[in-house]
């Protein structure tokens, strides 16, 4: 089989069809998800509330089948679920009323079911309402996330700046700085030059950005995965941003889940996350946090772990790192468990075939089994 540029898209569309008939969890269009991430704000430990609005699904899910580890559609208005502008505003009001930003949460991250800056998800009218509402209730820093192509729309950026008198922090799912990996291992659907242009647009306006970098990409060896994450973090930092290392968890109804069921994939070990940080310079580490290893929306099938004996200690050390940026806490757990030796062996494994050959073979099998 020749690895064609359209292969990941075809596969992802087939995967989505496979799961299309599943029943979706109960869903109230007037409320949304809120969860809290261990973070730092203003130099102090901070729980960052992540508000996930129920909107129309990610544009890339509809067009290109979506990313192969993502099941965000479970929170979106899909199938017979409809959503209108007033619903989304109600959700934001509900969330902000609950959070009371002026008392406890000056920094709030508000995500939609795909890209906050996609006007199909959040119209101009809703965006302005959200911004004004946030400002009114005391939000000082407004976090959001979007695919990079929507940052190229200067009107949307103008709207943001005109209607909110505070700081922004924009998250972009870069996942990998490598074009081949981003395309074939994630099916991300954008090129690095789009990311670069988006970042330039933000920097020109003095808007902070951070990249989501995926750890636990399918088809890669442990070493390739770790090294790619390190390179991608450095890429984001070089461009003037921050980085969130997203430790893959296993979401149902995804290609990673399909692969996992066939022993072709599993989420990474927590040791891999520690190794990524070890490989970074101290000043780089200060700009990185590690996420998704213990909570996520929607709830995954399982999270990354190490072994039964040490997972809790390692997870807690990661929480401590996220709250303090003190690498000492991770360094001091790096020798606590014998299971690390097994992981080291996996890390040292060198495959005979090249990455391209391995990806090609994997897609051949996937295509065969999916009858594509």
């Amino acid at each position, binding site marked *: 089989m020749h690895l064609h540029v359209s292969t990941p898209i075809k596969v992802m569309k087939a995967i989505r069809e496979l799961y299309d008939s599943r029943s979706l969890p109960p869903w109230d269009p007037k409320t949304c998800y809120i969860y809290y991430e261990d973070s730092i704000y203003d130099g102090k430990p901070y729980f960052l509330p992540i508000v996930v609005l129920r909107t129309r699904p990610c544009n890339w899910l509809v067009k290109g089948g979506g990313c192969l580890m993502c099941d965000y559609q479970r929170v979106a208005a899909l199938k017979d679920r409809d959503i209108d502008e007033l619903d989304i505003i109600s959700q934001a009001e509900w969330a902000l009323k609950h959070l009371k930003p002026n008392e406890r949460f000056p920094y709030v991250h508000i995500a939609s079911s795909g890209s906050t800056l996609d006007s199909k998800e959040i119209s101009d009218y809703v965006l302005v309402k959200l911004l004004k509402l946030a400002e009114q209730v005391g939000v000082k820093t407004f976090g959001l996330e979007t695919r990079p192509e929507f940052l190229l729309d200067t009107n949307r950026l103008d709207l943001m700046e005109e209607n909110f008198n505070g700081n922004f922090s924009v998250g972009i799912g870069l996942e990998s700085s490598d074009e081949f990996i981003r395309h074939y291992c994630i099916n991300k659907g954008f090129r690095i030059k789009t990311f670069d242009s988006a970042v330039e647009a933000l920097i020109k306006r003095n808007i902070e950005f951070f990249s989501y970098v995926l750890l636990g990409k399918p088809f890669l060896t442990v070493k390739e995965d770790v090294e790619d994450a390190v390179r991608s973090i450095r890429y984001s930092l070089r461009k003037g941003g921050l980085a969130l290392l997203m430790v893959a968890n296993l979401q149902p109804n995804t290609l990673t889940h399909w692969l996992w069921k066939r022993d072709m994939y599993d989420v990474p070990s927590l040791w891999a996350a520690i190794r990524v940080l070890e490989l970074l310079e101290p000043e780089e580490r200060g700009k990185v946090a590690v996420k998704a290893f213990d909570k996520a929306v929607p709830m995954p099938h399982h999270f990354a772990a190490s072994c039964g004996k040490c997972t809790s200690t390692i997870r807690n050390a990661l929480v401590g790192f996220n709250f303090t940026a003190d690498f000492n806490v991770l360094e*001091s757990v790096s*020798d606590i468990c014998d299971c690390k030796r097994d992981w080291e062996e996996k890390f040292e494994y060198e495959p005979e075939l090249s990455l391209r050959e391995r990806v090609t073979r994997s897609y051949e099998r996937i295509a065969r089994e999916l009858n594509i």
Partner: protein
Amino acid sequence: MNVEWELPRKVMKLFRSRYPFQSSMLNTDLPAIFYEEACYKDRPYVLPLVILKTRTCKWFQTGGGCTMCNFQSISAYDHTISKENIINQVNWAMKKLTSHFQRPYLHLTSSGSFLDPDEIDEETLIEILRIIKKNNVEVLSTESRPEFVLNEQRLETMRENFNGSISIGIGLESSNDFIRNFCINKGFGTKAFMQAVDILKKHDITFHSYILLGKPFLSTYEDIEDTLRTIRLTISLGGIAIVRLVNLQAHTLVHWLWERNMYALPRLWSALRVLEDLTPTERSKVWIKGIDKDMPPAIAYAMNCEECTSTVHNALVGWNITRDYHIIKQIIDCCDCKIGWEKTLEEPSERNEKRILETYETIFDEMQQQSL
């Protein structure tokens, strides 16, 4: 009311005879080690806890042991243990802990009371202190029942052979004699605790109390109030308070009650309420432990609901690491499941001795009826 003070001891002994503990073969040259989140010299610190396998706690042998404790599982229960075995364990632990990093703060204890000469004899104690001093330990934390603290000779040996800080942890559990006896079967009175604390002060040794949250037979409200009183007693005597949330251990009366729907683990909300009700000065002396790991590993740990357990758990981990109460305040009402927990606070607010004694009678009858 005529209170039969020996009742818990009778029940625990009956429990031990009905459910004799079968020890698995264990390597008497290897100690148990686990790690807890802490803060040392104002920085996050992962504290190693080394539990030496020694003879089983004397109180377990003479009084049936505490209602929630399964420490006998990691002791040399039916094995003979030599001085050489114990020294081998210490050497092994120190080699493991200090080959990559300095770990200046160490918790090292035995399977019952470190100061009980039947567990650690005088010669062994001196040798252990020599080894840890050689390994640059600056702060040594250990554990003992108060009656062994009254032996001043032991304290002098400690002081003469270790010039760093020493803190002795005492399982006070509750400052109330009735609760300590009937809910925990602890086997000592507040008076013994107070005497132990006085003697420690004389020898320039600090102390910390273990205080149980989630005591059987108490309502949520009684449990929290008792915990607060016990913390305050500890602090007023110059100690540090380690609040330990009960986790579910095999071979315990708590487990027996849990199987019969007569006991439920505390909610994490209870731990937050304890912190909330303390003054900032009191709070700064309180740590929350037992929420996610223990030795031996527990069957289950305290939780909230599926949606918020991870967040509230991380807040408590963050508290132990950063000592910043702001993160606790941020999530103090992060989930609707708190409403259900608050309802449990409305249960009997007066400690009801009659209720507890009646429960004991039921337990006693049921156990007696069970055939061996």
